[in-house]
């Protein structure tokens, strides 16, 4: 058992705490029933007071409205009191924004208007300045906020999203310090435009979702099989032994290789069959 669980179990509440809770709840329920006959008058009074309060607070209430995320979802984010959508300016394939002042407790949502295709990268780069600099960075996708890094105190920011489904991804910068900060930045979208780039003969280039069927019949004993994605520079274990199936969901350039029992590395392109999904039959594009 972990130490936190043991510690929590030792937290002491009185032995009759369950009875106390039950009696208190029942007593509140009874008093609520007694109050029912006074409700019309109470409602009228509450209504009048509410109207006055709404009039007073609506004069200068902070905005939690955004086109990209619901108010309820914003309220789940810690330390955020206001939200502002900002349209970025396109230029040379990138999106820019200059001299945005972000107030304490404010989140700015950067809208490029562009869609990210599955597997594409969006890179946020920028500079922030201000006293007691402290900010968080995340993104909104499908109306949900996803935090990437929080409580950053560095003046330069550089974060990357690799999309796992096609759609809109909005970068967010939140000022969690107690003074205003100034933000200049840009968003670059890197497409998976790999099909016309040469990666050498050992690399497999595919133009759609497919399955790699690896059937090794050489003399070496294979320990583990890996697939390296040249776009994301990520390496994924595909399996063990001589026969392995690996699903590829995005177009790109891949190296399929194995570590042998002796510790060597062998390329498995020669032992690879590629099966495309039904709607994509264009096959492998050899380089």
């Amino acid at each position, binding site marked *: 058992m972990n130490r936190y669980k043991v510690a929590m179990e030792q*937290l002491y509440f009185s032995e009759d705490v369950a009875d106390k809770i039950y009696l208190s709840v029942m007593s509140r329920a009874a008093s609520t029933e007694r109050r029912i006959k006074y409700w019309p008058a109470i409602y009228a009074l509450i209504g009048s007071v509410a109207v006055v309060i709404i009039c007073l607070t609506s004069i200068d209430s902070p905005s939690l409205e955004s086109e990209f995320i619901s108010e309820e979802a914003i309220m789940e984010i810690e330390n955020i009191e206001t939200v502002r959508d900002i349209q970025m300016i396109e230029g040379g394939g990138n999106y820019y924004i200059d001299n945005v002042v972000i107030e304490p407790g404010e989140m700015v949502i950067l809208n490029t208007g562009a869609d990210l295709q599955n597997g594409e990268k969006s890179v946020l780069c920028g500079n922030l300045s201000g006293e007691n600099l402290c900010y968080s960075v995340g993104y909104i996708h499908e109306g949900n906020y996803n935090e990437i890094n929080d409580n950053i105190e560095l003046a330069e920011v550089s974060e990357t999203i690799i999309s796992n489904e096609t759609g809109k991804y909005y970068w967010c910068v939140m000022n969690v310090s107690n003074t205003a900060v100034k933000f200049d930045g840009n968003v670059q979208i890197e497409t998976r435009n790999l099909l016309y780039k040469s990666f050498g003969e050992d690399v497999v280039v595919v133009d759609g979702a497919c399955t790699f069927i690896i059937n090794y019949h050489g003399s070496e004993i294979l320990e583990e099989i890996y697939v390296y994605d040249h776009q994301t520079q990520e390496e994924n274990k595909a399996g063990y032994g001589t026969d392995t199936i690996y699903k590829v969901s995005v177009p790109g350039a891949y190296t399929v290789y194995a570590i042998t029992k002796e510790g060597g590395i062998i390329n498995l392109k020669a032992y690879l069959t590629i099966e495309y999904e039904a709607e994509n039959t264009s096959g492998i594009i050899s380089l």
Partner: protein
Amino acid sequence: MDKNEILKRAIQEYSQTVLKLAYSYVQNSSDAEDIAQDVFFALLKEEKLFLTEEHLKAWLIRVTINKSKNHVKSSWFSKRNEMPENLSYMPKEYNEVLEAVFQLKEKYRLPIHLFYYEGYSIQEIAEIMKIPSATVGTRLKRGREKLRILLGSEDGFINE
């Protein structure tokens, strides 16, 4: 089963879950009991039918989180200057673990509580907190890193 029976059984079964989750927010037994009373009063008034025990427990946890947040935000609670509750009845090593976890921000503390005390999986915590599983995983990882710094080592937190 009538509403009173459901309430009675829910209190017997889940009062410790509710009390301890509330305690992790307010760090005070009497406030945690007040929150628990609010939570079970809300259950009495709830019209929804709970099809499974897990569904009921997850609902109680969500309501406890909301009531605890409201309690902490209330002006009465924030203006009060009360000394932290004395946990000297507890061995020092456990007291230290609780103090370290209670120092974490809510976004790290809550996944840690649900994972290590309630035994929920990352996927289940994501459903309760209504956030992606990957975010829960990241917060658990960062929470553990922060605890490692606060406690000197992660072993002090995890190993009994």
